[in-house]
């Protein structure tokens, strides 16, 4: 029943065999269809094996020991940093800071750069489609410094209103914090244009790239972004590791955020001098094994090819968008497929997102996200309490989209008004 199964631009279905979790789960008598990739992805055997190998053969703390295992771990950890550098085309490996994840990366910039550089009357410009992780840290830093937080609104079809952006951007704007791909709308934002205009106005740009780095080629130097944040677990790697990219000159000027081991050059009882990059921002024992796992994930993604992954997801999202557009009473959030990445969120007037997620799981084996996806202000703006989101990755197939659409039809049928009457309780 699928119309695009034969499409040559799809990735081979055989790569699904690399992901044990896809065949190890049966939900409601159906094989797992995992469509919650915007929240977190699954790992291929190659990443799981890399993690096992570290723990079984090479693990020790990094940058501390003379012994063999510490050397091995350090070498692999620093190799991971170089892999990430090449993956995003940064100039220097020491511009790649290992953090716990995207949220930690953004908080690092907000606390270290923000508290040092923002003052009353300055402005931070963000957008109404930001994930809470690129909104709350800026609310906090604005509260502390007296800077003002402004938000770029949306166009009717769920893209950034760039005319409004032009009006909001001024010499008061010190930083623009923007998401590359909206985790709720799927909107792909014009980062090139935003960076150029922001720099012309004298503002720095932080890109929350958590939803784009895993799915398409990233060239941070082409963007000319000043800071960029993303997570390992959204790109086939382990949770607990993320990246902050920052331009060397900016990171050099910023004070350390967390204090402790590793981030120091010299410690006296009455003070310390910070270490050079990247150690300056990596206090404490870093996420050693997750970083090495992330390195293996990058190898896997490079083998498949980021451009091929992007093409594959575009086919799936076009198929999903076309099918969902046919359903009466269903509101698709966000723009047309040509302006969106590989996810689609939707809402119904009468049927809550929970019902979709529950029945899709229990009866169709389909895992989707239901709720506000950490974008409460955006949902409020759209006038809906919650939405259901299907998000795709390289292991999804057109048949998965078919199953999703069948499930949605059934949910509509199940919860349609039927003139039911509650049995009256004798009072």
């Amino acid at each position: 029943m699928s119309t695009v199964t034969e499409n040559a631009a799809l990735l081979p279905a055989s790569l699904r065999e690399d992901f044990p979790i896809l065949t190890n789960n049966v939900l409601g008598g159906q094989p797992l269809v995992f469509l919650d990739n915007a929240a977190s992805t699954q790992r291929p055997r190659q990443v799981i094996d890399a993690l096992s190998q570290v723990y079984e053969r090479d693990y020790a703390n990094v940058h501390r020991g003379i012994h063999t295992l510490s050397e091995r771990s350090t070498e692999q950890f620093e190799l991971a940093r170089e892999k990430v550098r090449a993956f995003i085309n940064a100039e220097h490996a020491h511009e790649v800071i290992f953090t716990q994840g995207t949220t930690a990366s953004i908080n690092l910039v907000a606390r270290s750069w923000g508290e040092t550089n923002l003052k009353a009357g300055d402005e931070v410009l963000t957008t109404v489609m930001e994930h809470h992780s690129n909104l709350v840290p800026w609310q906090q830093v604005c509260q502390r410094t007296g800077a003002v937080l402004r938000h770029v609104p949306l166009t009717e079809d769920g893209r950034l209103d760039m005319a409004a952006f032009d009006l909001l951007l001024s010499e008061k704007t010190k930083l623009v914090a923007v998401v590359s791909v909206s985790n709720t709308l799927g909107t792909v934002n014009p980062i090139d244009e935003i960076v150029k205009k922001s720099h012309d106005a004298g503002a720095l740009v932080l890109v929350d790239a958590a939803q784009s780095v895993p799915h398409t080629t990233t060239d941070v130097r082409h963007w000319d972004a000043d800071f960029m944040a993303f997570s390992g677990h959204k790109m086939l790697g382990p949770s607990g590791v993320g990246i902050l990219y920052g331009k060397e000159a900016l990171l050099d000027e910023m004070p350390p955020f967390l204090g402790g081991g590793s981030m120091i050059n010299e410690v006296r009882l009455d003070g310390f001098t910070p270490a050079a990059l990247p150690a300056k921002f990596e206090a404490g024992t870093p996420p050693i094994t997750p970083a090495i796992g992330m390195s293996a994930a990058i190898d896997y993604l490079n083998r498949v090819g980021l451009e091929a992954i992007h093409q594959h997801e575009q086919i799936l999202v076009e198929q999903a968008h076309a099918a969902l557009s046919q359903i009466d009473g269903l509101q698709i959030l966000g723009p047309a497929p040509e302006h969106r990445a590989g996810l689609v969120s939707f809402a119904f007037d009468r049927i809550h997102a929970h019902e979709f997620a529950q029945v899709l799981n229990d009866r169709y084996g389909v895992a989707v996200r239901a709720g506000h996806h950490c974008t409460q202000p955006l949902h409020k703006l759209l006038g809906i309490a919650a939405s259901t989101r299907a998000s795709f990755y390289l292991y999804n197939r057109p048949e998965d989209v078919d199953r999703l659409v069948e499930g949605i039809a059934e949910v509509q049928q199940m919860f349609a008004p039927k003139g039911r009457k509650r049995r009256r309780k004798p009072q």
Partner: protein
Amino acid sequence: MPSEEELYQEHILDHHEDPFHRGTLADATHAHEDKNPLCGDVVRIELRLDENGKIEDLYFTGEGCVISQASASMLLEEMYGKTIDELKEFSAEDMLDLYGPRLTPNRQKCCLLSWKVIQSAVHSPIGNE
């Protein structure tokens, strides 16, 4: 894992489509509203207490999933005419039993929203909200 046949039993769908006392109470003495921050489910309960602490009448409004709204209807029907003391005795576990189908921890939050709201409502005189 409960299957959805258990989760969405007929009497639950009946309560959802034909709820007990959905609406507002003009002469309410007490009211409270809360939401589930995870999913945005919201329930408001308005009630009238007499001088002996008896719930003379009560109504709910809200938005959310079938479980959150049907459970509110079932709870209000159960508590109609009861006293504050009887309400205090009515534990979270009693609420889950009243609902019926076994729920996963996340869905229990949906079911217990109205139960949390009514426990606060009886201590929230209108005007002091």
